């Protein structure tokens, strides 16, 4: 299996980044959770764009080189996904700010106590 993984090392890196993003999502601090969400998303993007890669390929622009192009479909999907990701981040940060104004903390455990009072 190690030999097959050497031709798929970028996928392995993508999985590692996803795992790290998941780890940061488990943090106590709400803002770090949002950073972790972003890292998680970028790991998924890395996976997708790597799937579209082609050895010896050129960027999918017809005016640049004419050789075999990398697949443009993952690029399109990821462009949309990045913008949606930043929208989610912005609204989440607004909610974090609202939570801080109401309860005075951004740590998850303190927040839990404060809500149960």
């Amino acid at each position, binding site marked *: 299996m190690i030999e097959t993984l050497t031709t798929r090392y970028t996928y392995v890196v993508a999985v590692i*980044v996803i795992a790290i993003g998941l780890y940061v999502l488990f943090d106590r601090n709400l803002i770090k959770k949002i950073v972790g969400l972003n890292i998680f998303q970028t790991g998924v993007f890395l996976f997708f764009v790597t799937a579209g890669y082609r050895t010896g390929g050129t960027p999918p622009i017809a005016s640049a080189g004419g050789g075999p192009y990398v697949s443009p479909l993952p690029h399109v999907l990821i462009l949309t996904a990045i913008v949606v990701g930043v929208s989610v981040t912005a609204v989440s940060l607004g909610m974090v700010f609202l939570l801080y104004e109401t309860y005075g903390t951004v740590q998850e455990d303190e927040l839990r106590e404060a809500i149960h009072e």
Partner: protein
Amino acid sequence: MSALALELTLLGLLVLTAALTAVIRDVLAATVVFAVYSLVLSLVWILLRAPDVALTEAAVGAGVVTVLLVATIAKTSRPTDHAELSVRWPSLAVIGVFAVGIVTTLPSLPAIGDPTAPIHQHLGTYYLETAPAETGVSNIVTAILAAYRAFDTFGEVVVVFGAGIGLLVVLRQSGITLQPTTGSTPSTTDPGLEPSTTDPHGESSTTDLGREPSVITTTAIRYIVPFVALFGLYIAFHGAKTAGGGFQGGVVVAASVVLVAFGFGIESTRRWLNDTVLTAITAGGVAAVVAIGLGAMALGGRFLEYTVYPIPKATTYGIELVELGIGATVTGIVLVFFFALVGNAETPPGESSPTHTEESK
């Protein structure tokens, strides 16, 4: 061989910065390392021959997200500012199991870059071969985004628009609107600040927190901002020919306005770019895309079917206009994010300064 070394170095740096973001306890330092991670990721995108994605990642990830995160940290709390690293071993064990589990499924995928992989066979080759001729646009990613999959892009424009509205609705609960604080005396009570200057009309010409704008900064920004805005418009317009497009161009134009806000103060910038202009830009972008779509239906075609318009090169112009609409909406919404989260530099109740740190328990 050197390409492989470059690739491995960048991927290694990617994992390193992501891991550092995970173990640093201080949330502000973690955010800064996240910005570095985002920049390294942009380089990785270039290496994977994805220039559009690289542009978007650099503009959005290292730009907008970092500014919003730092603004939120400034206005909430920063539980610790010690440069400590800590690892939560139970969480690490869980994600380790998760990662190993997924990695064992990887050999079932085709090798990276394999030309015989299914992704290069069916629909991809159709787009690559017919898109330039059929749509008149060289950037195949833009052609797919704005023509073949235009409905998805329309949905995404609506999502961005909805996120801006959602953020305003959420923040309205705590009394924050887009209107800047109209008082000229700052809410911070730090006596060490310079007094604000007022001009004869009684309006203060200060930046937030009652500081005079620096002459160096304002002069430099006065000269730089036109070029940055022009570059943003270039990216948006030229996205049909080269890498780029509406999103990236919109974010860069928004960045130029943010530059103005940093130099001259958010209140002055909001006086210049008031609610009417922001609403017009944002809603106008969405309305333009909808109008183009409904116009096609009015002429007997389907929604966003450019070919029914009776002008020559209808698809090319349709793509360009839709990209401009996207750019306008993205500009407006990024500015809404910025002004809503960064503006209103009042200190939250119960603290003495925005940089107050508390010791975590």
